[in-house]
Structure formats: structure tokens, C-alpha cells
């Protein structure tokens, strides 16, 4: 008999938002499956949920395996997991060209709201790469009743600078011209000018609009410090023999600590799975995430 010890099953739901329906994968906590027939029975996990805030473009697809594994582990710890596809991505409504930073913030709110409906009283956000900045930006703007039960923010290899992140993305378009002469070369600058003029720009299958580009360009992790009430676990992976935070991350953390934020950094051994063509996992990152989530949510 394994039915009572099995996690899940995960189920996809569509959530209504002002800009259309978004798809959200829901992994209930063990014993949590029958919310409708008695959430208060004590079997509904520990009343806590982790809401994933996904990264940009192709990185989202490369992270899916990691989230699924994490969600299955958390379910056994009594923690539900919600994985929304942001507007214009994945199974959600809209094309990528319809995606706006503002609507993505609404999507985070919608996923948290759904978590509450499912019985969560404490929520951890897991911001992955650009999703880290999205989670931070949402937290700064959300009204108290929407973020009051968000007790933890876990960040996976946060993007530190929106403009640099988009430069790296735009370079996918430039890669083919690597051997061209300097004069004929397009640059991220010329690509940005095209988009600003209203020209259509598709990079690796994603149409980048002037609106989204401007919003992401303006993001800077140093100016998005979380408040003091939140537990913040900043997690990175490293393949080094002596794993250490990236130097640029240390500088952001220094800036945050100059305010009232008290982030807790951690580095584990693992491969940079969000960049790799072959689906790769970093098991130690999931283990650490599970540990810190259990510490913060099992209250």
C-alpha cells in the first residue's frame, strides 16, 4: 500500500487574471488531495505552500525538471507547490509578445491567492533567476493583505541586473554573426534600437517587445532589497572545489545588508542547469531548498 504515502498527484489548473487565464501546476501536500472533503482534518499537509516564480524564456524550460523533483519532495514534507506559467509563456494564454512585466507581477499574486484557496496559511516564494527579481518587485508593491502570509523568499541563482540579462539573451541573435567584420556586426545596442523603433524582434523563438525590454532593463537587484520581516535564502550553485558566492552577488548582498534586510546566502555544489541544453539537475540545491523551506514554513 503506497497510496497514503504518495505525493500528489499533481494537477494543472487555470487561474483567472485581469489579462487572461494562466496555467498553474499544483502539487498538493501528501494527504492534501481532498481539500474539498475536509481541509481542516489535519491531513492537509502543514498548511504551507511554495510558489515558484519562473525565469525568463528558455531558462524556464530548463528548470522544469528541478521543480518537479523539488515539488515531489516537498509534498512528502507536507508542503504544497504551485508552479505558474507566466502570461504568454508555457500553457498560459497569450503570446510572448503579449507578456508584460506588470502582468507577470499579477501572475505571482494569482498563484499566491490560489495557494491560500488550497489551505496555505504560510507561503514561500521561490524566485528563479529573473524570477528572483520578479518576486522581489512584486513583494515591494503588493498590498499587505496579499503578501502578509509570504514568510519566506528563496532565490535560486538570482539575476542581478536586468539589462545584462537581456544583453545575454539578445546575444543569441548575434551569435551567428560572430565571424562577421566589426562594421557589419549587429550589437545588442542596434537590436535595442530596432525594438524601440517598433520593429519586430524575435530571439530564439521569443518575440521581445519594447515594453518588456524597457521593464526588464530597469531592474537592478541592489534597489530591490526585501524588507526585514521576510526570511530570505539566497542560494547559488557552483562546480568549484571550494564553492563560493559569485563576486557580483556579494556586492548586492552588501548593499542589502546596509539596509534592514538580513539575507542568508548559501552555496551548494551543482551544475548551472538553467543554462544547459541537456536537461540537468542539481540535487544538492533541491535538498538545501527543502531544508530551508521546512525551517521557515513548519512553524
Amino acid at each position, binding site marked *: 500500500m503506497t497510496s497514503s504515502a504518495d505525493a500528489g498527484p499533481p494537477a494543472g489548473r487555470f487561474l483567472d487574471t485581469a489579462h487572461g487565464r494562466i496555467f498553474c501546476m499544483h502539487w498538493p501536500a501528501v494527504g492534501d488531495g481532498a481539500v474539498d472533503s475536509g481541509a481542516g482534518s489535519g491531513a492537509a499537509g502543514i498548511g504551507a505552500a511554495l510558489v515558484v516564480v519562473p525565469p525568463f524564456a528558455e531558462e524556464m524550460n530548463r528548470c522544469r525538471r528541478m521543480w518537479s523533483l523539488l515539488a515531489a519532495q516537498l509534498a512528502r514534507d507536507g508542503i504544497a507547490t504551485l508552479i505558474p506559467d507566466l502570461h504568454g509563456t508555457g500553457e498560459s494564454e497569450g503570446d510572448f509578445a503579449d507578456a508584460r512585466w506588470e502582468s507577470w507581477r499579477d501572475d505571482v499574486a494569482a498563484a499566491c491567492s490560489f495557494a491560500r484557496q488550497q489551505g496555505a496559511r504560510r507561503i514561500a516564494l521561490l524566485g528563479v533567476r529573473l524570477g528572483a527579481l520578479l518576486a522581489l518587485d512584486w513583494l515591494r508593491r503588493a498590498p499587505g493583505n496579499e503578501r502578509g502570509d509570504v514568510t519566506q523568499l528563496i532565490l535560486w541563482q538570482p539575476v542581478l541586473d536586468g539589462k*545584462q540579462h537581456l*544583453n*545575454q539573451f539578445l*546575444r*543569441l541573435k*548575434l*551569435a*551567428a554573426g*560572430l*565571424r562577421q567584420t*566589426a562594421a557589419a*556586426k549587429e*550589437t*545588442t*545596442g542596434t537590436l535595442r534600437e530596432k525594438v524601440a523603433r517598433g520593429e519586430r524582434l524575435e530571439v530564439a523563438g521569443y518575440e521581445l517587445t519594447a515594453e518588456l525590454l524597457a521593464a526588464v532593463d530597469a531592474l537592478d537587484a541592489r534597489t530591490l532589497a526585501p524588507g526585514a520581516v521576510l526570511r530570505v535564502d539566497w542560494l547559488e550553485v557552483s*562546480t*568549484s572545489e571550494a564553492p563560493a558566492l*559569485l*563576486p*557580483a552577488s556579494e556586492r548586492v548582498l552588501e548593499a542589502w545588508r546596509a539596509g534592514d534586510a538580513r539575507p542568508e546566502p548559501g552555496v551548494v555544489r551543482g*551544475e*548551472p542547469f538553467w*543554462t*544547459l*541544453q*541537456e536537461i*540537468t539537475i542539481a540535487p544538492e540545491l533541491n535538498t538545501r531548498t527543502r531544508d530551508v523551506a521546512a525551517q521557515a514554513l513548519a512553524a
Partner: protein
Amino acid sequence: MTHNGTQAARRIQTMPSVQDVIGLLKDTLQLGERAQGFSDNTRLLGHVPELDSLAVVNVITALEERFGVVVNDDEISADAFETVGTLHTFVVAKLNA
């Protein structure tokens, strides 16, 4: 030109070695055991099959994130990707700039 001691210390601490660059290539291109045979004379572009144009972009991104440099578009050229040694020289020059 050193502006203060802290900055100098940070630079020394973060200046990558040839082995660091090989490690980055190993991770980014998923070279596995093959990276053990790499040295600064190992030829890259046109010789390492994994290093296609998209992989070059991923390597540049990894250089930026791991070593904290910012690479401008006009600095990206095939020359830097000639060998492990030229790539290492490129990174060190960026950090010293």
C-alpha cells in the same frame, strides 16, 4: 591603477586561472572527462564540436556571471575563442581594464 586596498584584494582573490577557465568550459559545454586534457594551447573555435555559436553565447554569459566581468558586443570576436589561452587572456584583460 588601484583605488584602494579592498578593491585590490578583491581583484587578486577573483583573478581566474587557466584552470578556472577550463572548468568553466567543462561546465558550460558539458565536456565531462575530456576537459582533463585541456591546456592553454587547446584550440577551441572550430575544434571543439560543442562550441557552436549558441555555446559561444553561453560561455560569454558564464564568464560574465562567474568572473564578474561585463563583455561588450564589439569585444566579442573569434580571436578570443582561438584557444583556452586566448580566452583566459581575454578575461584577465577584462578584469584589469
